């Protein structure tokens, strides 16, 4: 691992309790040997399992109707077709397999939307390791199908009741479990966040997204894309979609965060009603890394908000924060209403029901059609089946242009 992979500019690092440091050193060593150097054929086995269990490679599909709508070439990288219905399995499978190579006997993970928890539960069942998932109580209530899926795969789901009961609290609680059971347990973190080596390692497991997309784009269009768009919570689908394009200076990379209900912060209430840490956050230290955060003037972390639980987080991956500062990645955001409208639009136009997280990327395209180059790739990070309950509820509350009339459906 090079020095830049512990720190990304000023960001990153390892701000964790001492009890975890030996495990982090052990993980760093395993990452270098198995992932970076393919020791014992680890990467070969990983790729094989991503094929056989995960269904890779996945198509880069031309979106005919969006192409027509925006008068440009729009291609969809179909991570929603990965086993489990989201990009998350790339990382979960990689880390659970790594845990096995390291001789760990137990898997724990946090989850927000439940997609990472589901992917981890699947990977753990597939590889035969016991698994416990921490999930905020509020998220459990808005993602019930995913909770049941984790249980079906044999995982325990532990509700987290502190704070607002979302991803931030779930990560803290999983870190506490890890600090208690560090000797036999591996923590499968769900995004490019946390202490080094997690941000670099999770990116590497997801880099297959842009590795495939880059080749497919060359084959199908004869060149590289002008624009790559992905939603960003912690930023794992984002860095996965960007990683192999970072060196392609002519390809613009757009990370679309959740603008939530407003970009304004209510410091007195400790709430930022959005999850736009790249666009509006300040540098600080949370969950093991220095990165951009939603925090008040004192450094207390604010409660974030998004219509999509997978984006609802006060931090973001340190590498993404660095690439934004460098001007290599453009940070954008789209509010709850626009994301919901995009959810309905993509479903209707293309026959693809996207995750609410993913819908933010499409919301940005709708708002910025002039910013798209001749060829645009959108990373379809996941499918929206998990979101149907909350989409019905949220659609009823609003006047969403072109949406299904919920009242009429359930008359």
């Amino acid at each position: 691992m090079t020095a830049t992979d512990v720190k990304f500019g000023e960001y990153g690092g390892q701000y964790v309790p001492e009890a975890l440091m030996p495990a982090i050193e052990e993980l760093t060593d395993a990452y270098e040997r198995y992932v970076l150097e393919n020791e014992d054929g680890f990467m070969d086995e990983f790729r094989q399992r991503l094929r056989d269990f995960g269904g890779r490679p996945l198509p880069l599909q031309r979106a005919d109707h969006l192409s027509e709508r925006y008068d440009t070439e729009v291609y969809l990288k179909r991570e929603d077709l990965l086993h489990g219905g989201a990009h998350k399995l790339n990382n979960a499978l990689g880390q659970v397999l790594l845990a096995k190579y390291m001789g760990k006997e137990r898997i724990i993970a946090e989850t927000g939307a439940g997609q990472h928890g589901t992917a981890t539960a699947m990977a753990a069942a597939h590889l035969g390791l016991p698994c416990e998932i921490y999930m905020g109580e509020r998220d459990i209530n808005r993602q019930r199908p995913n909770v049941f899926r984790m249980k079906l795969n044999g995982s325990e789901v532990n509700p987290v009741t502190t704070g607002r009961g979302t991803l931030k609290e779930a990560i803290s609680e999983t870190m506490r479990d890890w600090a208690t059971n560090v000797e036999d347990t591996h923590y499968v973190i769900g995004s490019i966040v946390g202490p080094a080596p997690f941000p670099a390692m999770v990116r590497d497991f997801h880099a297959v997204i842009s590795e495939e997309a880059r080749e497919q784009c060359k084959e199908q269009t004869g060149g590289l894309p002008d624009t790559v768009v992905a939603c960003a919570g912690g930023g794992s689908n984002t860095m996965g979609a960007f990683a192999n394009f970072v060196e392609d200076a002519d390809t613009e990379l757009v990370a679309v965060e959740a603008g939530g209900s407003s970009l304004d912060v209510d410091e007195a209430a400790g709430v930022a009603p959005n999850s736009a840490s790249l666009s509006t956050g300040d540098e600080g230290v949370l969950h093991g890394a220095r990165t951009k955060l939603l925090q008040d003037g004192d450094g207390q972390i604010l409660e974030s908000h998004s219509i999509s639980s997978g984006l609802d987080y006060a931090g973001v991956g340190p590498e993404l924060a660095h690439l934004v500062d460098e001007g290599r990645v453009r940070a954008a955001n789209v509010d709850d209403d626009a994301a919901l409208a995009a959810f309905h639009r993509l479903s209707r136009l293309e026959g693809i029901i996207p995750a609410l997280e993913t819908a933010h990327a499409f919301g940005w395209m709708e708002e910025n059609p002039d910013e798209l180059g001749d060829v645009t790739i959108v990373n379809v990070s996941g499918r929206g089946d998990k979101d149907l309950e909350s989409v019905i509820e949220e659609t009823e509350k609003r006047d969403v242009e072109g949406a299904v009339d919920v009242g009429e459906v359930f008359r």
Partner: protein
Amino acid sequence: MAENEALNEAFAGDAAFVPYLAAGDPSYEASLEYVEALERGGADVIELGLPFSEPIAEGSTIQEAVVRSLEGGMTPERFFEFVDDLDVDVPLVCMTYYNLIYQYGDDEGPRPFVEKAASLGLSGFVVPDLPAEEAGPLREACDEFGLDLVFIVAPTTAGDRLKRIMDQVSGYVYVQARLGVTGAKDDVSDQTGASLSRLREWDVPKAVGFGIKTGEHARAVVAAGADGVIVGSALVDIVAEGHEADTPVAETAERLESKTHELKQGALAGAGEDPESRGESLAESEPT
């Protein structure tokens, strides 16, 4: 490395007792009374928690204290006022998470926080999410202002890691008695003896914490070779019970005082045991 005389002196006696409370739990005024009760009970050093919204090293007892304190309006600025208002003579160590130290003041980095702490007579810091690898800037600021930086040594810490920490530690070393997070337990971990024997070659005072609840625990830990005992959750439990039962502040303060007394006496009893057997009783059960 700058040393703060106050902490050295506090550990000069037979066995030091180091209680922890979260400042402002459950209210500013009550908390002042509670911290002062710790001194009356025989505390030699007091660890004062400045609550952070994401206390990843804390178990449920202290997490709830953090919530009560934050809801009561505690902020870093209020914390410094609190320290100023406190009427205690024993040295105070601020226990908090790095982001609050890092964000304080107008200048980048930990220096403004340390400068302010020094101006109010605080003696040092414990920062549970700051391992030796990331501690350079804080260590530097502590040296500049003559404050101590206490590091936590976990049961998993050994070899080069241990050396790296012991190169940077001052004041005392916080020996984490067991893996996991803070929280009162019903036994003394046998990992403690092994940790203490790994530390034998360094002469910085060793204070054991995490899970200690009774005078008997305190005795056993000191008998095993510790120079001091740190207790948080068992005291925070008293604050929480008082808060929930709406007990008058003076009554809760009295309970804190007598619990502190029990723990301090336990520690002293451990120090009074046959010096031949000290450092053996717990260590024997663990391979070193």
